[in-house]
Every structure is written in C-alpha cells, then in structure tokens.
C-alpha cells in the first residue's frame, strides 16, 4: 500500500552493566505504517537468521499503557512526538534517508542491564516507601459514603495516568524523578482517601527518591515535555508544597510531643 522507506539505526549495544557499550549501525527498509518497535522486531529477526545476537529492548503491551518501552531516539525520550510512547510511534513520523540514534534511558539510578534495557526498580522502591493509602482488604467503607467532587476526581485521574516509564528522568538534565513522585503525590493528595497520610507520604517518597540517587529539580521542565502521558509539571509545585508543609509541621508536632 505505502512505499518503503530506507533508514539507518545507530543502536546502543552493551553486553551487561559492567562492560562498555557502543553504537552499532544497521540499515533497514521499513514501511511507514510500522511502529518503531516493529522495526526493531524485523531487524532482530534478520540478526537471528544471520546467527547474531538480537538487540535487547523492553516492551510489552505495545499500546502505550504498560510503561515497559523506553528508548531515547535522536536524543529525545520516546522520540519526537508529544504524548506518545515509543511503541505508539510510527515510521510515518520519519523520512526516508533518516539516521536515528537509539539509546537507553540514561540515569545513574537506571543502570543499563543489556543493550537498551535498564533497571528501573528504583521507582518501585519509591512507591514502596509511601505511594499508597493504608487500607487493608475488607476494611473499606461503602464506596459512595465519601463524596469526591468531580473536578477533584478528574484532576486526580490526570495525575494517576503516569505509566512509570521513566522518560521524565531520562529527559531531565539532573535525572530527577520529581515528576514521577509528584504524580503519585497529586493523585492521592487530591482525593479525600489520601488525606490522612498526606504529609507522611511526601516525606517518605522524597527521601526514598534521594536515597535512590535521583537528582534535584531545577525547573528545566524537560520532564513534562517528554512525558508520554502529559503529566503536568504543576504537580511538582504541589509536591514541594506538601513536602515543605510536612517538614515544618513535623517538627512542630514533635515539639508538641516534647521531643
């Protein structure tokens, strides 16, 4: 149906976390209707039939929701389009003759495991520190017992859409995880269910983030531009407010208790 395009991929190859990596060039004929990951599939099939090792890259749902796919394409996390994950990026977004450099998400807190696969478990550890409402199964009140204004529910949903891919970290010059953390803080902080642990959550998640080696936010806002789900950088201001408020009142509360 549509004519073939010729592109060159310069792909990051790295055997494991210890060894150094390098870029490897591959010429590919592709259809404009292919997704970027399908180009890697076809290239891998060719490599395997030639007895070579396939390029390792993470992917799963291929519809932009699982957050597995990553990749920095020509310096941009998830490639050139706003609000688009790499798996939803189609080759019609490129021109025949293009050179595309394909690299993993880079951050000290995201060590490379192999080729384009990085370890993002730091995000899980941040969640484990406080990214939840403490409610055991079975102890919940009736669902409509607590009213939630529609605007609050909608804003919470805007923040809750984060897919935990880590593009915000990869795009940030400081490799900060502030957008990721703030999305969870905003999601739960906007809902009545999240209020009892609001301060504790901000303190715990921010210290977990620091422990994992993510950098600080210095307002470049590259994170917001790279986010495939359009998570707003305004959430970062909310995180800062919650954290600052928590730090101040935490001291007072301790004083009240004679600490």
């Amino acid at each position, binding site marked *: *149906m549509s004519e073939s395009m010729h592109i060159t991929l310069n792909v990051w190859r790295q055997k*494991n976390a210890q060894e150094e990596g390098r870029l490897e060039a591959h010429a590919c004929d592709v*259809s404009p*209707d*292919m*997704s970027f990951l399908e180009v890697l599939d076809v290239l*891998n*099939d060719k490599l*395997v*039939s030639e007895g070579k*090792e*396939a390029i*390792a890259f993470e992917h*799963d*749902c*291929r*519809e*932009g*929701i*699982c*957050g597995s796919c990553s990749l920095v394409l020509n310096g941009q996390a998830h490639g050139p389009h706003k609000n*688009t994950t790499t798996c939803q990026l*189609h080759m019609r977004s490129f021109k025949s003759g293009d050179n595309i450099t394909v690299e993993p998400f880079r951050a000290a807190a995201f060590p490379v*495991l192999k080729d384009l*696969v990085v*370890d*993002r*478990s730091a*995000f*899980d550890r941040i*969640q*484990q*520190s*406080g*990214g*939840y*409402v*403490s*409610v*055991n*199964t*079975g*102890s*919940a*009140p*009736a*669902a*409509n017992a607590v*009213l939630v*204004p*529609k605007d609050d*529910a909608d804003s*919470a*949903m805007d923040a*809750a*859409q984060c897919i*935990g891919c880590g593009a915000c970290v990869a795009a940030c010059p400081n490799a900060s995880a502030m957008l990721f953390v703030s999305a969870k803080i905003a*999601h739960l902080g906007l809902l009545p*269910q*999240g209020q009892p642990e609001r301060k504790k959550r901000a303190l715990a998640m921010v210290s977990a983030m620091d422990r994992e080696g993510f950098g600080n936010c210095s307002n470049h806002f590259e994170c917001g531009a790279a986010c495939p789900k359009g998570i707003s950088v305004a959430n970062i201001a909310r995180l800062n407010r919650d954290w600052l408020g928590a730090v101040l009142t935490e001291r007072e509360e301790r004083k009240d208790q004679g600490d």
Partner: protein
Amino acid sequence: MATQEAATTTSPAQNVHPKLQSKSPSGPMAERWTKHKFDLKLINPANRRKFKVLVVGTGLAGSAASATLAEMGYKVTTLCIHDSPRRAHSIAAQGGINAAKNYPNDGDSIFRLFYDTVKGGDFRARESNVHRLAECSTQIIDQCVAQGVPFAREYGGLLANRSFGGAQVSRTFYARGQTGQQLLLGAYSALSRQVGLGRINLRPRREMLDLVVVDGVARGVIARNLATGEIEKYAADVVLMCTGGYGNVFYLSTNAKNCNVTATWRAHKRGAYFANPCFTQIHPTCIPVSGHYQSKLTLMSESLRNDGRVWVPSKMSDTRSPEQIPETERDYYLERKYPSFGNLVPRDIASRSAKEQTDAGKGVGSTKMAVFLDFRDAITRDGEDAIRARYGNLFQMYARITGENPYKTPMRIYPAVHYTMGGLWVDYNLESTIPGLFVLGEANFSDHGANRLGASALMQGLADGYFVIPATIAAHLAGRALPAVTEDHPEFRAVAQQVTDRTQRLLGIKGKRSADSIHRQLGNIVWNQIGMARTASGLQSAMRDIAALREEFWNNVNVPGSGADLNQQLENAGRVADFLEFAELTARDAYEREESCGGHFREEHQTPDGEAQRDDVKFQHAAAWEYNGEGKPETRNIEPLTFEVVKPAQRNYK
C-alpha cells in the same frame, strides 16, 4: 432475593471423576458463599506467619492476593515476570469493571449480574462460582475507592456508571478508558505497601518454568531470573498461579507480548487438568491488521459501542468513502438483527456478525477486512466535547495508529483475539487437580463459561485475589498435613535440572529461524482454523499442521546468545515451544466439542439464522484434559454442569 429458588442440595455426584469434584456448596444459591466461608477452617493470626505462600504473577489477581494474604499475616513471596508488578497486562484493560451496586436504580441486583453472566457465558460456567463473583463485585468497588482509585464521578460527587455489552443495566464503573490501569495501580499500591513493610518478598524479572510437586502436593516452582539467567528454586506451603491467559497462541492478539501459556502449561504437564482450552474470546472492536510485520493488535474498548454504531455498506465492494454513502445504503446490521440489544450484543455475537459481513464481501477499508464504527450520530446528538470526554484517549490512540481522525470519519474495526475463558480446571476453592496449587484470574477456567461479558475480567481477577483466595486457602493449609519441604529437597533439584537441560536443548538447536517467525506461522494456523468459525476438517488439518510446525521448531529454531544472562530470544523460544504443544490440545478440544457455544462456533452446529446451537445433552460440561506423558494423547475428562437457577435456553438478544 425474591427471585431465588427454594433450597436445593447438590451432593457431589457419584459418577463424577474423583479429581473433578467441584466442591460447590449446597443450599440456596445466595447463601452458598457465606455458608462455605463459615464451613471453611480458619487459621489463627499467630499461625499464619508459619505458612509460606508463593504467588506467581502480579496482575490484578496476583497483586490483590499477595497484598491481602500479607495483610493477614502469611509469609508471601511473589514472582513477577516484568521489571515491575505495575506492568502486568491487567494494566491495559480499558472499559470498566462490573458491580451490582444498582446506583443508577435501573433494576440491577446481584441476582441479575449472576444471571447475565451465566447466560452471557452460554451456560458453560459453574453457577455457584458465578453467583459468588456477583456477590464479591460490590465489595471490590468499595475496596478500590478506599485505595484511591479515581473512578469517574458525577457532579454531585457520586460514582458514575455506564453500560456494557450483554447487559441492559448500567453497572460498569470506569476510570476514563484506563480502568485496568487504575485498578492494577490500586492493587500494586497495596502490594507495594506490604513489600515496604517487609511482609512480601517481591522477586521481579522471574519467569516460572516449572512446578515442583512433592508427594502429590504442589510445593513450589522453578523460575529463571531473567536478568542473570540463574535457575532458582522457590519452596512454599501453597502455590497460587495468577499467570493470565493464552491468547498469544494466535500470535496476533490484543494481549501484551509477554503473555504466554508457559506457567499453566508446565503445571498441566505436572498433573493440573486443563479445562476448555477452545473457549477463546474474539473481541469485536479492534484496529484491523495493516501489514505482515504487525506485532500485535490494539483493542478499542467495548464501551465505544455505547455511542458508536456499527455498519457496512449495503452494496458489496462499495469503494465510496463512508461520508458519501447515504443513510439508505448503510446496513446497521447489529441494530437490524438484534433490535433490543442493538450495538450492545455480547462479544461473540458481535464478532461473528462482523465476519459474516466481510465474508459476504461487504468489508471496508483497503484490506476489506473491517467494518465501520461510526460516531457521527453521537457527535451530532451530544457534541464533540462530550464524546471527547468519554473516549478521548481511545480516539487519540486510534488516530495515532491509523493516521485517521475518528471524529470526522468512522473508525474501521475488526475482531481480534482478546481473552481466554479456558484455563486450568479449579474447584470452588480455586484449587486445581494438584492439591496445593490454586489458580486465579484469567489463568483458571471458572466463571465465564464459553463467553465472557465485557467488564467482567477485572471483576473476576480482583474477586479471586481480594476476597475468594484469602478464605479458601485455609482449606488446604489447615486441612492437610504439610511436612516441611525446602529447596534442598531432591525433587527441587531434579526439576531444576530438567529446566536447565531444556534451556540447553533450545540453545543447542542452532537452526535458521527465529522463534518469533515460527510463532507467527503458528498464529496463522490457529487464527484460520481455531478462530471465529471452526469445522471438523479444519481442526483436523490444524492438528496435523501444528505437529509438523513443532517438528520444524525443534529442528530449525535458532536461539542466539547464552542461558547465562538476559536473553529475550531464549525466553521467547521457551514460550513458543509451549504454545506449539498447547495449540494442538486447543484444536483437539474444539474438535471434540461438537456443538457451538459462546465463542466456540462450529459451523456444523448452527441454528437456521446462524446463531450458536448448543447441545446440552452431550456437552453441558467442562472438558478437563489430563496429560499422560510425552507423545501420548491426553484424556478428556468431564465435570458435568448443573443449572439449578438459570435454566439453559438459547440465548436471545433480539
């Protein structure tokens, strides 16, 4: 429960296979679950910490079960095939989750949800299980709201509902088009909390490659560390498999690429019976295939059928653009054939009807393998903004993939494999035919019969994980003597060695083809012969073709790299090898079930107007397949199904 029948008793029938006793409680349907919970043993909180629970999988069922059991005090270890539990494929469910809350006051009840689900499944599910599912549905919503799941709300702050296929009430709760994501993130947050508290030992990037059975009881699994290649042993007092469905046997499906049958298939080969593998669901509204390189298909939520109207041109091979086709030359075939349910007929019927139209030469688009889903009338009625608010992310996804604007031109859709109702056979306690092995969520066969209604998968995964297993697990833990078994037991060493040998065998073939290319070929066979319409001769040829392709695989696959590090080609090769065995059983199951029911449509068995024709005399049962060893045919055992409350009838959505 005015509609409830009088008390009936279901003492286990003597002529039922001893391993296939359903253990369904007796008595009035609406009291069975309560009664059963009371009859089950309890384990006191101090004793729970002595029991090691191993959970495999972190989708809705696995995450919910892990979190809940850890909250109760059990020692939980959870294996996750991804780098993070949040990536499990439950995340991709779009439309919603059913619950019999009756908030819209439109006549819903637990009984109606039960009734709709039994009927929607074309009378091939176990009534007691389905009623329990409907009962748990309301608690699930309470739990999720308390976790902070941002469900859609009305302006007054109350929860909003919408309707879904197979129902005439609005009982579906949703979070835009990302309900699965929000429910999974809720369960993931509960799981993460327990990990943070040190009560769950979470092992990400682990793939279960075999089950370890000691003295007839499931006592653990062998898993591969996908980052390092290490083969690891996990011993436990009980094993919960929450490993999802097998839709990827079709290669192209809406399932994520890592979804596979390996965990359930290997458990099957260790003695767990596999029930109804031919019950697969083809979802009617997916984005059509565009090229041979296609790696997966994308679902467009069923919720779109609330506002979208399905049609094809009345004329064959009409090449006009949809805008140029006048109203009088459009066939809104679902509204025409099923006036009372219209565009909201169940999935199996909507899919088959689409195939009927394309078979008749009325397909649209460049491949002619699509029908229109048109929002023109809804946009005229409610305005573009209202439609954007309801389905914005779905429209955006469609535009991104196809390069077309669905606000201006109708979507092109076609059916694609989406869900599998079959799975490991389980009794009312969710225990398989291997004592100590419980199976939850899509991985089991229990609640959806031959066709699952929309917004019921999320409900089942969470019901199993949050509410069913925490009660029924005691039947095993408190009911059986469990001698201490550790990873040093000879059986663990033996099975680990078998897993290592198999890996070496795959690496040693050094043929010419990638596992993926063979998988694609398998998918073609399965889609063509075990897809939306099946025939005896087609199924016979499928069995032959699959066996030949399996030979090709074991002689000509190439798995580069080593087993001692991250090797995605090796992971995939192991999964394809299992699909190649499993596919043949699926074909055989479809061949032996000489009737049509739900998603299983045998062309030889249809009513004069083309609807599925069940044979309740011969096939009102679940077929549970028993593995007899390498190269030997499997035995087809049956669990008869009795319908005490919802009397089987031909489904009528007209």
